[in-house]
């Protein structure tokens, strides 16, 4: 080796003018990347299709049935997937949107469930079973969530009980729906036992029919509180309301007891194991117990924009939802406070209302997050959906995007657990274009006494575009394999 040769090469290099790099090189590279992905995807899919077809042929009839799953494997899925909007069937005139009839399930004896949610712009019900993580596109009898009347009240009328064994939804009878504005629509709440499939119907009366907007379960899965609109018109093409109503339904009951609301609003009501219904007001807190005794606390919520969302098993604490991004989660609870004895010989105690704050991890949510509690794992730990305010790019290699996604979190409530904790136990998969938006999610929080489980992602029927891409991809894959083989051989000959 000679230093002189090195020096001379350096001089030659220095003499070379900088090359001109076209501005579109990035765009061309990315286009090529997208083409690579299509080809690679087609190749992989074609192989999978071939293998899958071979597997079916080899398995023969009946062998594909899944073995029975023991109840110990029941769990909440670690990833909750969206349902493609193309699985919805566009409604005929006078009908609501519905799931594709080939996919919709009307047998509600699907077994214990882990998650329920509504999907799409005209929301349809989806339930995930706890044993196998399967997605069930349910055809709930009288589902009101896709009817025009659902627009007169906020929320989604679907709720899975905390134990995962019952599903409640808002219901109406389409046969009573006419064109006459004076007609009365039969409507209310229905509850299905997911293990037997039996459905309990609770009729609600008021105005021209009560359109249920939201439903909540008590922590022990015995009580239901619903919130809805007493319509003043409800026809095939029109619905309106100026009067909001709420009520509680006891376990096994087929009637509902109205709960007096002081004012119209968008409250999310909660109900505890004793049947006491609570909600937030503009600045305070209001409760009505089973005897109709009302507790009205004013000004405790001053300056705190929260709405009630989930009551703890003991009924002492409520996790509040926050519509605006915040750096903390809010809780409302009653605390027992001792008072000085003063001139009395015996000291006194009283319960006083208190709003508590639990800090969210700042590194995970630098822009804050919105909170939507869905239940309590125990009296000290709330289960909540947390959505980061903005996309946040993490530093690890610049490729790990976690921001903006919604996570299911089990976090300690302030003033309860000895050690504060914040555990992300599941997440919503990123939605693709064409996926239905997930709303009104409820979770069988009783299942969170064990870890969430990695179930296979749901396999939806292929779209027409995908069929074309895959079958076309088989041909392209073969071509790509030939090209790859040639390139590989050339690469091995490189030097």
């Amino acid at each position, binding site marked *: *080796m*000679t230093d*002189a*040769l*090195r020096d*001379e*090469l*350096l*001089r*030659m*290099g*220095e*003499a*070379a*003018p*900088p*090359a*001109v*790099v*076209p501005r579109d*090189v*990035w765009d*061309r*590279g*990315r286009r*090529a*990347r997208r083409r*690579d992905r299509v080809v690679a995807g087609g190749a992989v899919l074609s192989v999978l299709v071939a293998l899958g077809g071979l597997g079916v042929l080899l398995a023969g009839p009946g062998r594909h049935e899944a073995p029975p799953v023991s109840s110990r494997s029941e769990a909440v899925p670690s990833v909750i997937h969206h349902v493609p909007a193309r699985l919805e069937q566009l409604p005929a005139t006078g009908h609501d949107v519905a799931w594709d009839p080939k996919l919709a399930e009307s047998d509600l004896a699907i077994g214990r469930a882990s998650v329920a949610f509504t999907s799409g712009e005209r929301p349809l019900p989806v339930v995930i079973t706890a044993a196998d993580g399967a997605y069930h596109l349910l055809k709930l009898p009288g589902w009101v969530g896709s009817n025009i009347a659902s627009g007169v009240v906020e929320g989604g009328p679907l709720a899975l009980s905390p134990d995962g064994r019952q599903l409640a939804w808002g219901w109406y009878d389409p046969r009573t729906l006419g064109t006459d504005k004076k007609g009365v629509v039969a409507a209310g709440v229905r509850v299905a036992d997911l293990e037997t499939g039996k459905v309990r119907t609770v009729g609600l009366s008021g105005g021209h029919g009560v359109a249920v907007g939201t439903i909540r379960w008590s922590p022990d899965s015995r009580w239901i509180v619903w919130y809805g609109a007493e319509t003043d018109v409800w026809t095939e093409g029109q619905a309106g309301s100026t009067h909001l109503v709420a009520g509680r339904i006891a376990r096994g009951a087929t009637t509902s007891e109205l709960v007096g609301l002081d004012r119209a609003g968008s409250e999310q009501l909660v109900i505890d194991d004793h049947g006491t219904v609570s909600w937030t007001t503009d600045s305070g807190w209001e409760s009505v117990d089973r005897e109709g005794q009302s507790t009205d606390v004013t000004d405790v919520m001053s300056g705190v924009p929260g709405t009630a969302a989930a009551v703890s098993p003991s009924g002492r604490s409520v996790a509040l939802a926050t519509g605006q991004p915040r750096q903390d989660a809010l809780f409302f609870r009653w605390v027992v406070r001792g008072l000085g004895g003063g001139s009395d010989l015996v000291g006194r105690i009283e319960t006083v209302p208190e709003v508590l704050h639990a800090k969210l991890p700042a590194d995970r949510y630098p822009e804050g997050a919105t909170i939507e509690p869905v239940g309590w794992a125990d009296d000290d730990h709330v289960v909540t959906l947390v959505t980061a305010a903005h996309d946040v*790019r993490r530093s690890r*290699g*610049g*490729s790990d995007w976690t921001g903006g996604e919604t996570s299911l979190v089990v976090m300690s409530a302030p003033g309860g657990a000895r050690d504060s904790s914040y555990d992300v136990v599941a997440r919503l998969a990123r939605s693709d274009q064409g996926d239905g938006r997930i709303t009104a999610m409820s979770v069988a929080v009783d299942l969170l006494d064990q870890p969430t489980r990695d179930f296979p992602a749901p396999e939806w029927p292929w779209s027409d575009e995908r069929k074309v891409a895959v079958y076309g991809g088989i041909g392209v894959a073969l071509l790509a394999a030939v090209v790859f083989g040639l390139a590989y051989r*050339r*690469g091995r*000959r*490189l*030097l």
Partner: protein
Amino acid sequence: MTDAEAEFNAFVAARTAALSRTAYLLTGDHHLAEDLLQTALFQAARHWERIETAPEAYVRRVLYTQNVSWWRRRKYAESGLGSLDVAAPCAAPDLRLTLEQALARLTPKQRTVLVLRYFEDLTEVQAAAALGVSAGTVKSTTRQALARLRTLAPELSELIGVTP
């Protein structure tokens, strides 16, 4: 503009001059060097997610291997300095011309190995890793290249020295 595109553009702006020098030494021709570098940057953009933590290493590897690949594919006949557009100041112009002419008559494989060893200052093991060949191949190719230089241009003996 995405963050990735901004990172790519920043990389191009910062490293184009240095990469151009390597490309020129590999090809011996300004236009070919430009094509070679553009091809390497196109490949970098294509695989940016995978290489963004170390894009330069990837781009250099593409330069080395693509140069040889082109030659193999096109049976390219190198033509010495005739295509150089710009003459650059040099401490020893006569010597430089002779070396460039001699380099032009090496195979791209030999030329690439010399550039890696004496311009990029890589060890045999590093050069072997960059080219995806064994260190023994790099060693033998280097020896062959230097021997050929001596044969083609005996006047360069002082520059080249003894066989390593």
